[in-house]
């Protein structure tokens, strides 16, 4: 999951006297070139924006490989890169479950099963689908919680971005925050979603160009995979009390350190159902940040292929995020010491005062990259963090303009009016994000718990969507009541567990960490389904005529697929591509 790996207190910024990394003129040049290109894309894209569909949905004109890469990049932000390398440094290979169990299956499901409804019904956002299927109640719950969550997450992305700039280049945090925010703001306000998506695609290549050399040189320095294994085994046997045992770090299953469950069988069940099913399906199939990328594509075939094409690079992201984290835990003195102490040692020299696991990549960059490649790596990280924030902001402005402003506040104005509102919303969101970022730097624990809470909205959303798409009888009342009770169910479970919501949690159920999140999400899913069914039996369903395009049994099969697709070669067809991805990810799961 995108949100779980990192904590906002990653970098409680203390005034650093020296920068972590010694950047030279050539490194600054590489970073500057990147920013120039990013702004240039915004300008070019601006010329092509003529109406609100252009601005919010890129005129539905992009090819599948572009939206597929953007789909991955929108998620490849600060939280993912720093979080996954940090988790890799701490617990090793089980971290791959966030990708091969916790992302790929859900992405394939989104493309094969759910995308035809999203794209085919011509809705402009995920909440709008909710509106058409269930009416006002479910729509308001979805649109509001999504909009607020995006502002929060944009702020956290911005904060991480600012603290990295501060650590790398020595700029004061507030200057870094404002400069980064202005750059993101200018390219989205000018170019809308096209600029955001083009930059995401560009960012993907820059981040690979940055992290791949880092990984390869790191591997070379440490003596290959054998060196990583030897280093981890040695460190684990030297500190048996504080470090996760080496065989658990070097084997993905049963992943006790990831799930927080001691029992092997429970741990596997928790990862497969909690992470692989409820949490990841909830995140990937209902998150408008992701789905918006697919909606921007040029046909229903491209929309369906967007997450499926995205799943191929996604499979290999662990090799350039988790693996360098593991290498850093062997090669970088500070991270190795931190790990030996069980994460408690206070070692100066991190991006936010003391070294934390989140500094793994930065410190590895410092140790193995020569100037030049170092600049490229800095550019890659900045690119990823900006794109993460841009993705949040561009999804926010769509939901704000279409789903909140146009639906409930000022209706029936000409299109140009909503385009202006969209641009204003972008400015507003950026300003709010700066304040959220400042808040994150002062109240880091609260931000962590809020992220956990927002995670709880996803699991019941998925339940409501999937039941609503396949059971035509499900009623509008069941829609919002199911959502609310599912979310409440998750919160109750989180309170009953240990520490999930800090001091609010009372520890009746003896599970903490990720295991508790799996359990809460699972409870939310079950409660949502049961309540939806019960409420449906006592309320009046919508007439079938209003469900065309929204519910499987009421929708003509032709409108769910692309008539042209049958004539394409197999590698351009949705189902064969999805099968190839599925086989590949199963092979990866077995081999590693």
């Amino acid at each position: 999951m995108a949100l779980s790996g990192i904590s906002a207190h990653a970098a409680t910024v203390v005034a650093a006297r020296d920068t972590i990394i010694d950047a030279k003129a050539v490194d600054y040049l590489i970073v500057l070139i990147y920013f120039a290109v990013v702004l240039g894309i915004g300008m070019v894209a601006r010329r092509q924006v003529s109406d609100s569909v252009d601005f919010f949905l890129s005129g539905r004109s992009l090819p599948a490989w572009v939206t597929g890469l953007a789909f991955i990049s929108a998620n490849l932000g600060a939280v993912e890169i720093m979080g996954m390398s940090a988790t890799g440094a701490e617990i090793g290979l089980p971290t791959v479950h966030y990708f091969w169990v916790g992302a790929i299956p859900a992405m394939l499901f989104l493309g094969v099963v759910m995308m035809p409804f999203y794209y085919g019904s011509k809705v402009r956002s995920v909440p709008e689908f909710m509106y058409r299927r269930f009416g006002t109640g479910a729509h308001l719950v979805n649109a509001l919680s999504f909009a607020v969550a995006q502002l929060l997450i944009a702020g956290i992305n911005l904060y991480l971005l600012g603290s990295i700039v501060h650590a790398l280049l020595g700029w004061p945090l507030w200057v870094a925050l404002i400069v980064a925010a202005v750059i993101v703001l200018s390219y989205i306000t000018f170019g809308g979603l096209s600029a955001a998506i083009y930059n995401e695609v560009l960012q993907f290549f820059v981040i690979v160009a940055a992290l791949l050399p880092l990984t390869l040189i790191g591997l070379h320095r440490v003596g290959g995979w054998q060196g990583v294994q030897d280093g981890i085994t040695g460190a684990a046997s030297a500190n048996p009390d504080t470090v996760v045992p080496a065989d658990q770090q070097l084997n993905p299953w049963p992943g006790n350190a990831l799930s927080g469950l001691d029992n092997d069988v429970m741990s596997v069940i928790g990862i497969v159902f909690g992470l692989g099913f409820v949490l990841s399906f909830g995140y990937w199939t209902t998150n408008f940040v992701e789905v918006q990328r697919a909606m921007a594509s040029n046909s229903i075939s491209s929309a369906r292929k967007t997450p499926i094409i995205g799943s191929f690079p996604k499979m290999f992201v662990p090799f350039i995020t988790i693996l360098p984290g593991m290498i850093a835990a062997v090669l970088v003195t500070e991270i190795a010491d931190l790990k030996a102490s069980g994460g408690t040692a206070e070692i100066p020299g991190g991006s936010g005062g003391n070294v934390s696991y989140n500094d793994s990549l930065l410190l590895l960059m410092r140790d193995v990259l020569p100037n030049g490649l170092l600049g490229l790596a800095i550019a890659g990280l900045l690119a990823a963090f900006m794109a993460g924030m841009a993705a949040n902001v561009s999804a926010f402005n769509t939901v704000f303009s279409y789903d909140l402003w146009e639906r409930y506040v000022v209706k029936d104005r000409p299109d140009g009016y909503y385009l202006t509102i969209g641009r204003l919303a972008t400015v507003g969101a950026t300003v709010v994000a700066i304040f959220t970022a400042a808040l994150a730097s002062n109240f880091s624990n609260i931000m962590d718990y809020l992220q956990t809470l927002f995670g709880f909205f996803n699991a019941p959303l998925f339940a409501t969507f999937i039941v609503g798409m396949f059971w035509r009888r499900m009623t509008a009342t069941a829609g919002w009541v199911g959502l609310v009770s599912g979310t409440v169910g998750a919160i109750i479970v989180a309170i009953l567990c240990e520490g999930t919501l800090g001091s609010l949690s009372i520890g009746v159920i003896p599970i903490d960490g990720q295991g508790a999140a799996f359990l809460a999400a699972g409870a939310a899913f079950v409660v949502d389904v049961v309540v939806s069914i019960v409420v449906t039996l006592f309320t009046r369903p919508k007439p079938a005529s209003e469900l065309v395009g929204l519910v499987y049994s009421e929708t003509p099969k032709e409108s769910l697929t692309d008539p042209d697709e049958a004539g394409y070669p197999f590698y351009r067809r949705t189902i064969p591509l999805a099968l190839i991805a599925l086989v590949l990810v199963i092979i990866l799961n077995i081999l590693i």
Partner: protein
Amino acid sequence: MSNPSGTPRRTAGLADIRNIIGGLLAVYGVILTAMGLFGDQELDKTGGVNANLWAGLALLVVAAAFILWAVLRPTVVPPTSGD
């Protein structure tokens, strides 16, 4: 799928994302290759490999592939399918 009311649009040259990617990676490739040839190789950090040079050359190859792709299969921006 065609749009009767819209004017046909073509993107060309620089606006094609493949050319932008290719161009940026090419500039980075040139800089890194030059660093590898003329700059401090910092072999103690990289474990004896001229990392800038190899990364620079690899970037140039990838950049060339993108630009070649854009030249061989130029994009005519598909007509918008929406209203």
